[in-house]
């Protein structure tokens, strides 16, 4: 029997230009490392951690599927979960506004025509360049109740001293003050923002007879809201993940006063080896951070002013 081979219907493909095809191929190819890296090293482990969070995996022990038990335990039995969340939120509420306020104030000063402006800008930015572990060690000495710089100054001025990071009441504010020391980053961004404020607006205020306060209140502040917003979001994300200070300076103490969420998570995963529970903790932190960021973005409509947009 003879078979008649019928030609397979060929897909009709519109001819594509060589240049466009090459662009498309190279575009995909060049984007691939980033996309693959993101998928393999971020999304992949995230998915894995979610699956792990549904198990009771403790390193060295058996692994059992426990469903949502880890999440239930977190909200039911684990007092430290609440403590660490509270500590982290309090720290954020102290450190972020303080850093923004100091950064903004210094940026305003640096924006003026003072002599040695360049030098000041470098000086104020320097703390940002100090590795965070090194600055934590440095501040451990600054806060030393006996020989530390701060208590020496207070003693010299005849003022009462503090136990700083060694007292449950003052440990967290002490760390927030330390965070504000690294205001340089925010200040640089504020400075860039300040230089973008149109001169004519200040002139208009002057024409209307407004003083420095009016200039600040009605021109500088509204024009700076996008920069404030940016610094706020970045500050929030950074402080939610604070870790080094607890690890280097306080080990979460005294009396869990500086038990930051990330430090607790780290301890659960690596000191105690409870990967299942730690993964669940990580997911809750992720959700909290997304929620807080979303709230801030939502609130931005009310207070952030974009000159090119449709106003507030």
């Amino acid at each position, binding site marked *: 029997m003879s078979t008649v081979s019928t030609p397979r219907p060929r897909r009709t493909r*519109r001819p*594509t230009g060589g240049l466009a095809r090459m662009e498309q191929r190279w575009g995909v190819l060049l984007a691939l490392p980033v996309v693959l890296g993101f*998928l393999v090293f971020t999304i992949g482990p995230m998915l894995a951690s979610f699956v792990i969070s549904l198990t009771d995996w*403790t390193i060295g022990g058996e692994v059992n599927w426990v469903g949502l038990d880890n999440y239930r335990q977190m909200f039911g039995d684990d007092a430290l979960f609440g403590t660490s969340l509270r500590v982290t939120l309090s720290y954020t509420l102290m450190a972020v506004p303080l850093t923004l306020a100091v950064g903004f104030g210094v940026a305003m000063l640096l924006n003026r025509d003072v002599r040695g402006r360049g030098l000041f800008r470098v000086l104020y930015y320097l703390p940002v360049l100090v590795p965070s572990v090194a600055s934590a060690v440095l501040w451990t000495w600054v806060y030393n109740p006996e020989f530390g710089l701060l208590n020496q100054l207070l003693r010299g001025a005849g003022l009462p001293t503090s136990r700083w990071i060694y007292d*449950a009441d003052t440990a967290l504010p002490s760390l927030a003050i330390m965070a504000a020391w690294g205001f340089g980053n925010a200040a640089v961004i504020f400075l860039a923002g300040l230089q973008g404020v149109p001169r004519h607006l200040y002139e208009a205020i002057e024409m209307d007879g407004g003083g420095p306060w009016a200039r600040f209140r009605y021109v500088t502040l509204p024009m700076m809201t996008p920069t404030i917003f940016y610094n706020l979001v970045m500050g929030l994300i950074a402080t939610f993940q604070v870790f080094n200070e607890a690890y280097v300076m306080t080990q979460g103490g005294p009396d869990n006063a500086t038990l930051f969420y990330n430090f607790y998570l780290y301890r659960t995963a690596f000191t105690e080896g409870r990967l299942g529970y730690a993964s669940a903790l990580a997911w809750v932190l992720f959700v909290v951070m997304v929620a807080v960021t979303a709230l801030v973005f939502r609130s931005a409509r009310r207070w952030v002013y974009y000159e090119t947009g449709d106003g507030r």
Partner: protein
Amino acid sequence: MVPLPPLGNPTHPPPGRAGPGRRALLRGLGAAALAAPLASCGFVPASRDDRLSFMFWGSTQEEASVNEVSRRYSERPDRLAIDTELVSYNGYATKMHTLVAARQEPDIAYAPQDMAMRLGEGGYLVNFLDYRDRFEALDDFLPQTIHYWDDEGAVFQTAIETMVTWYNADLFETAGAPLPPTRTEDAWTWDELVATAERLTFDVEGRRPSERGFDAERVEQYGLMAPAWWFSPALYALLRSNDADAFDEDGTRCVIDSDAAVEVISAVADLIHEHRVAPSPTQLATFNNGLALMMRSGKIAMGLDGYWHLLDLAAADFPYGVGVMPRFQDEALTCVTSGATCVFNRSLHPEQAVEFYLEMADPERCTLYADGLWMPLRRSYYTDPRLLASWCDTEIHPAGFVDSFVEPLLHHAVQEPVYRVREGGLVNSRLTPGLDPIWLGEVRGRDAVARHLRGVADRVDSYLTGVYPDVRGT
């Protein structure tokens, strides 16, 4: 001039046609994301078959001694070379957990007590008891040093450490204070300890704590270093000497709020805040450079702490002495503490690994015993006079050493609970911060301490999940 192609270039495939390609791409990327964690699980390099790896923590002196034992072991015929790796104690649990999770454990390693028990129960460890026929020395180990994770399997301690009263003899002589007794029968009562510490404490003007005008902020010399932290084996020994404990028999309830426990914890905190004969944790944070150096510099006259300090005391060059722990009730007790040394099942040469452990455990091969860091694990090194002398008849071991260390270890010792209580490390880490307010003096007075500890015990209860069989027949 070449005309620019208009937007929506017809040479681009129309959207409909791009569908399958994009979907395939997405599918591929999705697979890559899922494959990443799976692939990492499969990537387990083989254990080396031509050498043993040994991971441990400790000082550089400990490292030198470990390397020496390793070198001599490897020189013997048919023995493998040993790769030693010193890891800082602070990051040790992290490193170990990571290695175990990645299934890349070393052949031999120190392990914190609770981790050793968990790994043993989880089937990761070689059971040394299986090698008793091969190595007779294993039968010579003191029962206190063998911790059963179930009826059959056990982990062995790295060494033994017990608690004593260390002191600077010069400071006692200057103050005319009686020396701490070296025999358990003569052990100080708590009041005697406090009275002696009071005689050894004075401020920059030379005033004692009981004298008017004593300046607690400017103390020149403290009588005592209080064991005011959890988990301090010395504090635990004191608790047990008052018939108190931290956890109940079944390991399901925290009993740190019992009357007897409250009495001990209040008494220790009173050393700092009431009698003012011991520095507070805050003060210690500023000048604590190790017990030996603090005693040498005259900042502290005595301390309740472990054998390992002898290594530093011997190097510090001052006349030091030793006595037994004080007591609350009739019997003065000491507490045995030490991490474990584990051999992993994944090792290709478990027998040589166990043999190497036994070399490390042998005071005649490892100098750390006579150097003042470790006490031997084997009974004969306490009961056979020649063997006993081999590690403790040295220039650095002070008079009364046998009475203060050996006799209490054999007859008046309790076990630290971190082996027995499941997840003992985790439980301790929950209890530790709970006691901070007491040590810091924020909660003071017996009633307030009792109330506070009741709350702490309630919180710790939820982390208690039972016990291992642990030590048999001491």
